[in-house]
Each structure stands twice: as structure tokens, then as C-alpha cells.
């Protein structure tokens, strides 16, 4: 892979296409989430009023769904090599409890400076990010399939009534899974992993950030060998 160094010791983490696709998915998902919550519970019905009323939310929701699933499918094309779960990920998984508890910070400063040596090194995405991707991918496909049935439910013959019921049931189930992933993703990307949010806006991360969080990836894109560090 060609070096992707940008200014002042920064590394390009997400190119423009990747950022655009990410935000297409993010913004369409947020619309789907808000209008979906209004349909999910009357407690959130006021959200549908904010979005232009119930019938408008109902009319726009499926189109947004098409945009979201298109973005997710494009991500699949774009990131599949980076999203495959590797044996190193399974090593990393063993220390996930320590990762969640930020225990790397309790290490001796010298040791901590070397980043994740205590954990298995991480490539472009860590296992949590990969789980999120696969969750959104499969839930997205389920939401698309069931959503299409619900979108055209009045065209479905009575003999296929079971399909309508199955879709009405699976659509909110898949929705709940994505909400779980979404909450953790937004929390990790903004509050916990500082630098994560700006990386998906501006595309760049500092080299030290990359070494700390994604050492295998940094070595790969800069052409450096792990031994040199």
C-alpha cells in the first residue's frame, strides 16, 4: 500500500469517499432512528411531529432506508478486507475487559508509551468496530427486506399474510440491535476514543494516535516494520 502520510506527522485514516459514505449512512440512520422511534412508541410520537408529521415521516422513512442500506452495502464493498475477523482479533478479544476499563492507562508510563503491547496489536479496525460493522450490515439487510414488505404491504396477497406479520415483528427486532450498536458506536467514537470523531470528519489522525490504537494498520500504510518501532 502506498504511504498515506499527510502534514506534520499525521496519517490519512479515511479518504473523502469513506467519510462521505460514513456520513451518508450516519445521517440517514439518524433520520431512520428518530422516525422509527416515533413509530416504535407513542412516548416518542412528538419526534414525528418535529419531522413534519406522521404521514410525512411514514412517507420519507422507506426512502431514507434505501439510502442507508445503499451506504452500508457500499461500505461492505469498500471495507470488506479490513472488516474480516482475524486470529489477532481473537487474541485481542481476550483482553477486551481491560480495554473497556481503560486499563492501559494504569500501566507504567514507559510501557504505556508503547501503546497496546499489552494487548494484541490492532489493524485498521479493532474487533469492536468490526462487530459494529457486521451488526449494521446484517441488521441493515434484515431491515431492508422486512421494510420492503411493510412498504408495499397492501399489495401483498392475503395468502402471504405470514410474511407481513414476520416483517412487522423482525423490523423492530433488527432496529433494536442497531440502536444498541449505534449507542456504543457514538459513545466510543466521540467520548471515549478522543480523535476518533475528528478522524472521520477531517480524515487525519496523528501518528502517535495511530500507533496507540491501530499499530498494525500504521505499520502497513507507512511501510514500517513492527520491529523498527
Amino acid at each position, binding site marked *: 500500500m502506498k504511504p498515506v502520510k499527510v502534514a506534520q506527522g499525521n496519517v490519512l485514516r479515511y479518504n473523502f469517499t469513506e467519510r462521505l459514505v460514513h456520513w451518508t449512512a450516519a445521517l440517514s440512520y439518524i433520520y431512520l432512528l428518530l422516525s422509527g422511534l*416515533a*413509530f*416504535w*412508541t*407513542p*412516548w416518542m*410520537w412528538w419526534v*414525528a411531529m418535529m419531522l413534519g408529521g*406522521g*404521514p410525512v*415521516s*411514514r*412517507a420519507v422513512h422507506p426512502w431514507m432506508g434505501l439510502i442507508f442500506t445503499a451506504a452500508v452495502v457500499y461500505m461492505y464493498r469498500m471495507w470488506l478486507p479490513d472488516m474480516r475477523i482475524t486470529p489477532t482479533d481473537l487474541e485481542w478479544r481476550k483482553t477486551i475487559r481491560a480495554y*473497556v*476499563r*481503560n486499563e*492501559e*492507562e494504569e500501566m507504567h*508510563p514507559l510501557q*504505556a*508509551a508503547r501503546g497496546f503491547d499489552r494487548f494484541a496489536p490492532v489493524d485498521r479496525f479493532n474487533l469492536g468496530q468490526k462487530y459494529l460493522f457486521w451488526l449494521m450490515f446484517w441488521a441493515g439487510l434484515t431491515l431492508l427486506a422486512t421494510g420492503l414488505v*411493510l412498504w408495499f*404491504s*397492501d399489495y401483498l396477497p*392475503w395468502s402471504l*399474510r405470514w410474511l*407481513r*406479520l*414476520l*416483517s*412487522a*415483528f423482525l423490523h*423492530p*427486532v433488527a432496529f*433494536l440491535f442497531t*440502536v*444498541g450498536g449505534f*449507542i*456504543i458506536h457514538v*459513545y466510543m467514537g466521540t*467520548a*471515549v*476514543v*478522543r*480523535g476518533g470523531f475528528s478522524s472521520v470528519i477531517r480524515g487525519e489522525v*496523528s501518528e*502517535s*494516535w495511530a*500507533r*496507540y*490504537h491501530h499499530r498494525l494498520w500504521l505499520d502497513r500504510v507507512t511501510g514500517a516494520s513492527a520491529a523498527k518501532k
Partner: protein
Amino acid sequence: MAGKVLEIRAMSASSTPAPGIRSAPVVAKLIDTSACIGCKACEVACQEWNDLPPETTVQIGTYQTMPDTTPSFWNLIKFNEHETDDGAFHWLLRKDQCMHCADPGCLKACPAPGAIVQYNNGIVDFQQDNCIGCGYCIAGCPFNVPKMSRQTKKVYKCTLCVDRVSVGLEPACIKACPTNCLTFGTKEVLLQKAKSRVAQLQTAGFLDAAVYDPPGVSGTGVVSILAFGKNPEAYGLPKDPSVSFAVEIWKGPLKWIGNIAIVGGIIGTFVHYLRFGPKHVPEDDKAKQADAGR
């Protein structure tokens, strides 16, 4: 009684209990299918009273007006042909319309507040101005009743002439029926009447005659007397209709599990932040400190 208010006993997508507290006798329509002559006066009366636009009839090889009810045709006499074991031919006429279930699957499935209501007299009514056109009621109904208009993207069905009933009149179809096949009154009285008619039919040789008031939906506001009551499918009626398991789980336990998971997830991340806080990249922190000291 003039000016009597119909209160709402149940309302779709309501986060609080429905406001109705007054008791009212539950009304019903009794259809003695054995007395139906297929004259379709009820179809015409329904269209006229409700000012529904004329619907194109479709020839399907029987005397039936069209294959199915539509958004602007709420009451259809179905001409089912039935052959008994002894080779005799019967026309099983059925009045296809909203059954006004005591436990309405449409109302349970509906996500739009107030789009489907059940009055204290048992009538289930769609409020099209609150309808968002999602079609979940179509999934929730065990009788294939709600029909979506392609023009307005709203669902329509029989109102049991709630506008007439609320001022003490009987529904238009009942008024028009020439054979007393249709009667209207309190459900209690009509069920007694139905029982004696079933006994009469059994004496006349229809041993399977029965009242169709399915318990799976806690009974219906439209009760039928079927001469071949053991075989409601022959009339195009489901044998044991109920609000689907999928709807019950989705609107029951799943809703609570989901709400707890969503709120729990948000609280969980907040507590995690209080306990563990952000992750720091040591070198970046040093650089920041250096910047600040400069």
C-alpha cells in the same frame, strides 16, 4: 338518546389509558347467513349512506359484485359455492365487512396515536385524519378487512355506521335488508336470538349449525349464524382467528425489553464515562502539554 356521547374505550398508540369511563351496552350486528338471499341491498345501502364513490364491478364468474372489499366498498356479499358430502350444492352467502372485534388486532398493531379507536359500545373505527398510512393494521387484522386507498394513503373500512348508531339509528345495511337476515341491537340480546335460530336450524337438519363469535378475538361485534358452523372456512371465514402471536409479542414483551435496553444503554454509557472516562494517547497528551507550556 339524542346527544349521547360515544366515549373511547381503547385508542391506538396511546401512552395513557383511554378516557372512556361510562358504561354502555355493547352493540352488535347479527347476520343470519341462512336467511340471506344475495340481493345486495346492504351493499347499495352502505354505499349510499356513506356517500362512497361508485366502485367498478368485476365479473369473477359468480353473482359476487367484485373479488374483495375496497377502500370505498366496505360491505361485500361473498357468494361461496359449497358441495356437501351427499353431493348437494349450497350457496354459502357471507357478508364480508369489519367484524368489530372486542380485541382488535388492527388497533393493537397501529403506531399512530388515535388513528384507530374503539368506542364504549364496542364499535371499532378508523380516524383517517390521524392515520399515517403505514398498513400495520392490515398486518394486525385476522379478517383481511382494512383496505388502503392508493389516492389518500389511508385505510378505510366499515364504521358500523357509528354516525347513525350514536344517534340511536340502526346501521344502513340493516335498514335495507328485506329478509331480516340482518338485525341490530345489544350483543347480549342478539346472542340469545342467535342461539334459538341455531337450534331451529339443527332441527331442520343442519346439525353443524353454529354461532360464529370467535373467542380468539374476545368475540366480535358482527356475529354470524352459519348453517355449516363446523366449517367456517367454507364461508371464507378463518376457523379460529386471533390477534397474531407476532403482534402480541411485538407490542407486548418486545416493547418493554426494547425500552429497557435503549434507556439502559444510554445510562450505561454515561456511567461508564463517569467511572472510566476517555482513553488518552500518552504521546499526544505530552505534545499538548508542550504546546500549552510554550
